């Protein structure tokens, strides 16, 4: 890893002595997880807690004619069997639309289906019992009479007149359409030396968090208050929505979120079964636990990426890209997900295609259609892998067409590093990106020329290896432009409160959340560095709406950039407040003092003046000894949201080195490289591991992962043996490098790093496979790249 700060012209609060910023330090409190002593919601038990199991529809589309719950109610251990109609008296339905996505429509969705089911897996009844096993036993005795309806499953025919309309009130199956045009596209294509087209197909896949979605909802009838323990990325969003639909005020709902077994965007949504669990707790006046089992997870956790995208690129002989055009189609299931909607992914595809390049001519259409499959919505790197695969696939095809090296064509077209700020043809504003520095660096890291020589040499022996390059841009630090402007009560600002305790340690309350990314660590690093205390004296509290400031949580790579800046600003205030008190005690001026390693010192020579422990003792226990008129404030709160740029774009490039067994169609991942620019790096190890983890999720998409539906809308591989996730045996080592262009929107300068790995991995691998297969004159634009797909392309079968 090497980092170069590109604007080191001034020392900031981060450059203080003993700063933790830019240093690899272990995350605090990992021992809890290493010893199996974490607090996951699936571990939680409360007095009188009952377990809910949802009976789920076996049909993709059916009318519910009758539900006979009587036999199930008689079974041992059963507390209640509740249908959608009954639950509707407790919780109101919702519609997943946002006003800034013009034309987006969806139908009201209920916590439990009322009258009709629209996908295989939609809940039709809740069985609450003293144990999960007893509830499952009883579920087998709930008799549901269905009248099967014709299912609309294929996105390609969803808009055909012959296809049944899933929600008659909406008039058609089109949820959303966006058309965008910039520059002079037709003219650009006409003036190109070549125009290349391809159809890109992406497998529908899902997040597969290792801990399934889990909720324990507990209604205290005496307090009229609901406590929701949930593995969520956005506690305040859950609080607001639960309150809204249960007819409560926000203050009547507390959301507590301790350890979370993986999220990746899966746990940033509001699911019908979670809403039903909240409602059941209120209805039954007791704690109710819902832990999705793995089959339910596959059938109900949001899916993503199911896109078919026609792409077109114009190219001149000198390598200049003249235009991009796409026509994207995606099927999102029967409802737009709540509250973030299911139009965001396609919208992102339109935003991001062509993003790294200086080309100005761009035409895009995206259509989002309803279908009788599980819902799709935002999953890690929303839309990025599709946009990157289409863009980088087209760029490689153009390079092949004119006989240019893939690195060279990128050099000639990537936006120049000194061209910022600038705006993309899709309207995105870039503050400062570093495509060329990144490309130069990755070419060095991988020793590109040596790999090309090795490739040529091995090809003579019938060994087919390939190199794939993929440049990308990444959306991070979202402002209100993402959701808030569309009317969603999803906070884009975050808050941090820091407080000096009575022994000179710091309690820090933050509204961002932790699912393993290192939110706790980066917060402690910032607080410790800015204040001048050691990290072991900083305790970070997250995930409790009763305790933390109000904020968005952790999603869209916002924790470090937004929550981190709030921590920085709050700590600056606390630091000044401490120095003011210290100055009063020491009869000095605050400017003469500093805090270093838990002690107030003379700024000039570092002489210890007063220990924070002693200062806190005086403030809390002997305020009578302070000079008159001094009221110490040893707690400070600050909030932050980016205002100038709607998003902090980052950029990077990935490279894959693969070997294709042309006899079997198997792909071996030999090595993978990433260079990424997330601005200020708070903890290099955590950034690198975000990127590696993200890359492997992208490699899963490239080679393995796909939700396989039959034409009747049945998910046929809803288990972990048949849905293939990446495992250690097939994954390569991944080298990560950095270029550092801090954002000037914040003093911290940090942008996000959580999406980068996933954004470009599949594109790099697909390009590498096509590169390996160059001698066979075949191009594959479909992922996952299964042996069946590759052998078919090679015409071996």
């Amino acid at each position, binding site marked *: 890893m090497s980092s170069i700060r590109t604007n080191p012209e001034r020392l900031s609060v981060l450059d203080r002595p003993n700063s933790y910023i830019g240093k690899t330090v272990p995350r605090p409190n990992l021992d809890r997880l290493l010893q199996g002593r974490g607090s996951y919601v699936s571990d939680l038990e409360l007095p009188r807690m009952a377990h809910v199991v949802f009976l789920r529809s076996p049909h993709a589309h059916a009318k519910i004619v009758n539900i006979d719950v009587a036999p199930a109610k008689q079974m041992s251990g059963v507390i209640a069997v509740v249908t959608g109609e009954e639950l509707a008296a407790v919780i109101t339905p919702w519609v997943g639309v946002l006003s800034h996505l013009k034309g987006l429509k969806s139908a009201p969705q209920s916590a439990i289906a009322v009258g009709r089911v629209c996908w295989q897996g939609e809940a039709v009844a809740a069985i609450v019992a003293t144990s999960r096993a007893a509830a499952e036993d009883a579920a087998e005795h709930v008799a549901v009479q269905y009248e099967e309806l014709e299912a609309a499953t294929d996105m390609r025919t969803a808009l055909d007149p012959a296809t049944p309309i899933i929600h008659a009130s909406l008039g058609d199956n089109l949820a959303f359409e966006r058309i965008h045009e910039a520059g002079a596209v037709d003219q650009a294509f006409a003036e190109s030396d070549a125009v290349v087209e391809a159809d890109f197909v992406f497998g529908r896949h899902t997040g597969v968090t290792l801990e399934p979605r889990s909720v324990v909802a507990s209604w205290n009838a005496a307090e009229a208050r609901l406590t929701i323990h949930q593995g969520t990325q956005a506690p305040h969003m859950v609080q607001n929505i639960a309150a809204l639909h249960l007819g409560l005020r926000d203050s009547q709902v507390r959301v507590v979120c301790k350890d979370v077994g993986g999220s990746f965007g899966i746990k940033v949504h509001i699911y019908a079964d979670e809403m039903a669990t909240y409602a059941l707790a209120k209805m039954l006046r007791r704690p109710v636990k819902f832990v999705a089992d793995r089959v339910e997870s596959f059938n109900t956790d949001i899916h993503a990426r199911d896109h078919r995208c026609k792409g077109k690129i114009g190219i001149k002989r000198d390598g200049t890209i003249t235009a991009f055009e796409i026509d994207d189609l995606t099927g999102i299931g029967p409802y737009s997900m709540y509250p973030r909607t299911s139009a965001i992914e396609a919208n992102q595809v339109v935003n991001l295609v062509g993003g790294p390049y200086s080309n100005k001519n761009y035409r895009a259409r995206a259509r989002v259609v309803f279908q009788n499959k599980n819902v799709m919505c935002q999953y890690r790197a929303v839309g990025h892998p599709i946009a990157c695969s289409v863009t980088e696939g087209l760029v490689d095809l153009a390079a092949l067409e004119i006989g240019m090296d893939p690195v060279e064509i990128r050099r000639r077209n990537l936006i120049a590093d000194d061209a910022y700020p600038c705006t993309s043809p899709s309207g995105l504003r870039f503050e400062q990106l570093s495509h060329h520095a990144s490309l130069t660096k990755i070419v060095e890291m991988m020793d590109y020329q040596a790999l090309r020589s090795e490739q040529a040499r091995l090809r003579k022996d019938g060994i087919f290896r390939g190199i794939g390059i993929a440049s990308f841009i990444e959306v991070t630090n979202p402002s209100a432009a993402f959701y808030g402007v569309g009317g969603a009560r999803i906070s884009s600002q975050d808050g941090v409160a820091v407080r000096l305790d009575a022994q000179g340690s710091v309690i820090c309350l933050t509204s961002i959340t932790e699912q393993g990314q290192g939110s706790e660590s980066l917060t402690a690093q910032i607080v410790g560095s800015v204040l001048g205390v050691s990290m072991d004296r900083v305790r970070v509290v997250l995930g409790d709406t009763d305790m933390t400031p109000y904020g968005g949580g952790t999603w869209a790579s916002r924790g470090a950039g937004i929550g981190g800046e709030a921590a920085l600003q709050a700590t600056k205030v606390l630091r000044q407040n401490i120095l003011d008190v210290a100055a009063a005690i020491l009869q000095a001026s605050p400017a003469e003092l500093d805090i270093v390693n838990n002690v107030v010192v003379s700024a000039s020579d570092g002489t210890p003046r007063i220990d924070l422990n002693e200062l806190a003792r005086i403030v809390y226990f002997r305020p009578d000894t302070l000079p008159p008129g001094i009221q110490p404030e040893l707690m400070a709160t600050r909030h932050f949201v980016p205002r100038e740029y709607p998003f902090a774009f980052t950029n990077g490039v990935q490279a894959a080195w693969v070997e294709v067994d042309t006899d*079997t169609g*198997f792909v071996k991942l030999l090595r993978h490289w990433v260079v990424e620019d997330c601005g200020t790096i708070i903890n290099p190890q955590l950034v690198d591991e975000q990127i590696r983890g993200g890359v492997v999720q992208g490699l899963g998409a490239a080679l393995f992962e796909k939700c396989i539906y039959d034409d009747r809308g049945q998910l046929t591989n809803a288990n972990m043996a048949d849905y*293939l996730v990446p495992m250690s*045996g097939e994954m390569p080592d991944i080298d990560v490098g950095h270029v550092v262009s801090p954002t000037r929107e914040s003093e911290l300068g940090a942008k996000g790093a959580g999406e980068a790995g996933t954004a470009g991995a599949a594109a790099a691998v697909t390009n590498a496979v096509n590169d390996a297969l160059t001698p066979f004159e075949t191009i594959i634009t479909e992922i996952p790249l299964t042996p069946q797909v590759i052998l078919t392309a090679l015409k071996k*079968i």
Partner: protein
Amino acid sequence: MKASAFAYARATSVANALELLAVHGEKARVLSGGQSLIPAMNLRLVAPEVIVDIGGLAELRGIVIEGETLVIGALTRHADLLKSSDIVKCAPLLAAAVAHIAHPAIRNRGTIGGSLAQADPASELPACMLTLGASIVVRGPGGERRIAAEEFFRGIYETQLAPQDLLVAVELPVADSGSAHFFQEFARRHGDYAITGLAAQAVLEGDRFAALRLGYFAVGDRPVLAEAAGKLTGVTVTPALLAEASDALSDELDPHEDQQATPAMRRHLARILLTRCMASLLKRPDLQIGGVA
């Protein structure tokens, strides 16, 4: 995802197990290592009324050499096979195959008897039994009987075992000191069920096969002992002959379609395996380069 309720009986002897099976018949399932049965029960794909746990029957565990026969007790675990020097010496193909079965934690519980009785057509051990000419030793109400592996497997999860029967052991001829073996499978990920696999054993005389047995798995509803082996026995294998044998192999296989592969792909992979097997056993890399693929 919790198993349905069932009654549990811990067998105290083989005789006791047979009594329990005789009483409960089709309502009962035998629990050996449980690595196939318990997931199916957790998923409620099966819901036996009675579980007869034979796990404590020491008499069914162990590997012994009796003259020219290797006897492997039904409860012998995959991990035991992998660590056994007798297996390496007397049935090296089996040692090679077992390394491909799932993962260490599964191999510590899964048993050879359980795997054979489960008769998953994609699993390794049934094919090895065909290749090695094993006899499956079964005890039932009528006493003990031996069933040739080629007769034992009847379809997907189907064998000659009746509900009252207990698979107690397998018997294998000790491998000839001059024999060679080849094992390869194509699985998407390490430890996954194979898309197609081949367990082969041969006796070489000079540059020819005196004997050759090719046990394919994951190419249909049961493991297949390929008759195409006959074309390659007793003659010098040329690329042309290999192509002919491969065509014969394609003709005799009747592969299934699933999420991983079409029948055409399975036939193709079976041919690739044959080519690789020949190149390996005969030490003839020339057969692989520009082969029949």
